[in-house]
């Protein structure tokens, strides 16, 4: 059946034939996803599927790359060698994760240069959480524990998403990410057990990162425009509100354990629901940051643009060298 319909998309088909064929192709496509079959780069896919995936995967890649900046700030000032090697390894992983994801995204027919261009011009977004400053060492703890914790909750379901290259990249990312959260929690634990000043520093970091971490899981289901379609394509397997609840339920006992207080007076266990109830999230702040008015939006973007522009001569030199070597080899062969 599918073969006949694919032939219909040939040049002789009339416009209505083609529309009909596309509809059937789309049906076959949706059925494949419903059967949990993966979609691979050369398979036919609706244009909207391709575009949505480019948007989400690139946004994810950009987040990994921009996400190196707030932590890079503390590598040279890590308090011990143990902390320094861990932070270095974590930031290097983030670079790697960005690269896995850019490669996955490129299989959808967009070039790396176009992807960078979209980031640098502000057309593509990255996670709004990286627009907050890292003012103390405890922020390295809070980021690992909360931001990576929230990221893992978001990412684990993506390991079984419908687009093959994205799912494979996510499996690698998730495998590597769990050390990120643990090293952050270890930093928080040690600070919370330290001097009163150290404990205050940990509490202050928790106060500042808690709400942005909740926002990081995305707008409420009622506000989220992409959720329904993304669930169908298994690009999303749980809604933002479900993920947020899961994050809160899992994190609150961890804070209790190390003697830190979640900065939410309305936070209370609800026996009936079997979940924590929590206070209202300041979504105005979220949208402000998304629209570019967060504390560090300009700084983050200009750091990326500068790195790209100032690295141009290095990229050109490497290409020139490669071409020269190639020429030499050819001449020798003659």
């Amino acid at each position, binding site marked *: 059946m599918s073969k006949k319909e694919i032939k219909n998309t040939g040049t002789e088909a009339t416009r209505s034939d083609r529309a009909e064929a596309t509809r059937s192709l789309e049906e076959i496509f949706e059925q494949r996803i419903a059967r949990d079959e993966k979609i691979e780069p050369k398979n036919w896919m609706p244009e909207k599927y391709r575009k949505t995936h480019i948007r989400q995967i690139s946004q994810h890649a950009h987040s990994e790359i921009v996400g190196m900046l707030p932590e890079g700030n503390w590598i040279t000032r890590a308090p011990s060698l143990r902390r320094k090697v861990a932070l270095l390894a974590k930031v290097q992983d983030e670079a*790697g994760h960005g690269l896995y994801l850019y490669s996955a995204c490129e299989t959808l027919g967009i070039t790396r240069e176009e992807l960078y261009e979209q980031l640098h011009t502000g057309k593509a977004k990255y996670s709004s959480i990286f627009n907050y400053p890292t003012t103390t060492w405890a922020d390295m703890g809070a980021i690992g524990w909360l931001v990576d914790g929230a990221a893992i909750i978001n990412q684990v379901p993506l390991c079984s998403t419908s687009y093959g290259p994205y799912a494979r*990249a996510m499996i690698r990312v998730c495998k590597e990410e769990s050390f990120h959260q643990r090293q952050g929690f270890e930093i928080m634990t040690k600070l919370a057990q330290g001097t009163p000043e150290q404990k205050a520093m940990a509490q202050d970091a928790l106060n500042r990162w808690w709400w942005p971490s909740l926002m990081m899981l995305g707008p409420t289901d009622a506000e989220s425009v992409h959720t329904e379609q993304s669930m169908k394509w298994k690009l999303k397997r749980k809604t933002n509100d479900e993920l947020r609840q899961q994050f809160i339920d899992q994190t609150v006992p961890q804070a209790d354990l190390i003697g830190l207080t979640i900065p939410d007076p309305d936070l209370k266990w609800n026996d009936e629901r079997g979940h924590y109830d929590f206070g209202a999230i300041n979504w105005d702040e979220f949208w402000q940051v998304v629209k570019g008015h967060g504390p560090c939006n300009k700084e983050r973007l200009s750091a990326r643009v500068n790195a790209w522009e100032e690295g141009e001569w290095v990229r050109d030199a490497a290409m020139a060298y490669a071409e020269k070597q190639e020429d030499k080899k050819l001449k020798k062969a003659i």
Partner: protein
Amino acid sequence: MKNNWPLWEVFVRSKNGLEHRHFGSLHAADADMALKNARDVYTRRNEGVSIWVVESKHITASNPENNGELFEPAQDKVYRHPTFYSLPDEVKHM
């Protein structure tokens, strides 16, 4: 942006005795750089003992639209499988 680095495919043998498997891709100016980048991007946790890189443009891939004529002919050739042949019950191992 006049000279964009080409795309390379990376294959890694995770240990001797196993085949190289496709791990992903990356951009690099030449093969030497592709190998070095592949080491940093794909083997940060001892995932490999050997890496192959090949420029993506050198790979010829089959088109999924031709999957019918390419792969369906194998479907009705059950006689290529041992289960197609009947053996007397007395023969235990063959």
